């Protein structure tokens, strides 16, 4: 699947396109097919997101896993500070990145 990502303009948070807006949770990302670039340009022009780009990912049940390690780290947070990431209670969360 193809998913669309960028950074929130005001906070800089990593965000994922949900079909109707942006979420900080990668699992909310939808398959944008071949529309990702078009959506990204429109959202950037509307000043809602910074530097949007399309990436490859795979869906596993309700979970979405970006294909490249860089985007998995963007999705989770620093692997060396899991307490600052989106799954602070899960000490094994970093394994998902690798």
């Amino acid at each position: 699947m193809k998913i669309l990502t960028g950074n929130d303009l005001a906070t800089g948070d990593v965000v994922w396109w949900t079909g109707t807006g942006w979420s900080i949770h990668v699992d909310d990302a939808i398959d944008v097919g071949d529309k990702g670039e078009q959506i990204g340009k429109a959202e950037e022009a509307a000043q809602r997101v910074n530097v949007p780009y399309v990436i490859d990912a795979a869906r596993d049940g309700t979970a979405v896993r970006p294909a490249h390690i860089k985007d998995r780290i963007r999705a989770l947070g620093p692997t060396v500070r899991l307490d600052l990431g989106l799954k602070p209670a899960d000490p094994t969360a970093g394994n998902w990145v690798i």
Partner: protein
Amino acid sequence: MYAYDQYDQAMVDARVAEFRDQTARRLAGQLTEDQFKPLRLMNGLYLQLHAYMLRVAIPYGTLSGRQMRMLAHIARKYDRDYGHFTTRQNIQYNWIRLADAPDILADLASVEMHAIQTSGNCIRNISSDQYAGVSADEVTDPRPLAELLRQWSSFHPEFTYLPRKFKICVIASEQDRAAMRLHDIGIELVKKDGEIGARIFVGGGMGRTPMVAPEIRDFVPFGQVVSYLEACLRVYNRYGRRDNKYKARIKILVHELGADEYRARVEQEFAQMKTLGLDPPLAELERIAAHFAPPPYETGLSDAIDLSDRDFAQWVSTQVKPHKVPGYAIVNISLKPIGGIPGDASSAQIDLMADLAERYSFDELRVTHAQNIVLAHVRKADLPALWKALEGADLATANLDLISDIIACPGLDYCSLANARSIPVAQKIAQRFADVGRQQELGELKLKISGCINACGHHHAGNIGILGVDRKGVENYQLLLGGSGAEDVALGQITGPGFDEDGIVDAVEKATDVYLANRTEGERFVDTFRRIGMAPFKEALYA
């Protein structure tokens, strides 16, 4: 320490107001990201992997307790309660909200700090020796010149849009603690026939094309250094490439022209520049130098230190260095606890170091390019109390210049340019060599890790260097041996094929085994490598 005059303060305050307006316009949708990006970068605000990142300048790595406390305040109020001290003697915050950035800059300005020229193709923060002013081996204090160059390079209209970023380092001793010859311009202050002047090296750097700067002039009179640097920069600005950012650093120009031709062009330019009155009058040099007068040291102090506590003795032998004044010592505070993140400090730790500087070191701290902190003027009698206070805050690790004193860039955990993570590798290596006795047995061994070819982790200059690369989406680590950023400067050599994350830790251990098996009396790791060459190491690594 230097204190802002009315001009310094007015410039910084004006920049805060300007950036506040620019940020408001961006948040209101009146500026696009393409329009705003160069403006925020001029104020040190990057968009990194997880959020905006702010890089704050710490001129030549020196700051007061009050300034250090402000860094803690910013970490606490605007970030996630920590900061990251960098290999350029700066500090970075990783979780900044755009709307907060102007307030942060205003807070910084209130203590004579800023983030100006911490990004962009301009002259960046001037770096220097963390032992400046207190080391017995220096010919003079390099900080007054560093400060003069800070003022000269700040908002310099001709050098605001150079072909590429530009880094200058000033030292004043033969022992190089600042990787001077790996800068675009390295300056070593020297004494010749009783006169202080500058030995100038141009065209060093790391990154994808590492080079050691050749000497361009063996002596520039102190009073003409600004003119000479103007000439160096002018030649670069005119002839440096702008068509390819990977060929745009001054090292490429010096290399392609050859040092002799570059020197000739600089001399031609210098002949004109030095007649234009660009160099500051003696009174201005004296005004700046007065800010760096030695603090009021006590006299008649004892040099005795009670080393009956084994852990304290260990810390003293590793972290404490000789001071030029009897009864005083230089204290290195490690920001490399075993398993920690190199260069990271919590707001509480930053506050504590500020308090300790105020109490024990004439209210002054230095940040080192090795991502540690120095208290430069500690009475030897105060060392036990200082050590106790540091120990209680996980700041008393005794590993200066040992294998666990690892320089590491933020790597793929934070940086959008990185290809591989640096910090977890640093943590695993430090844990592998956690035993203090084992580290001591290995002796001086500088290990440096970069998460990409840009080399912010100085891997080219590591006795052992590690470069993280992306191999088809998987992190891979190349090993380099034999580099040095010190006075015996050398670029490391790649051993061969790379390793995975666990494999690189094993590879480092094998390299140290080869060293231990081959060293002679008193030889450091890098000495043994130079004597026996790469072959025995390759044999062990790839058997």
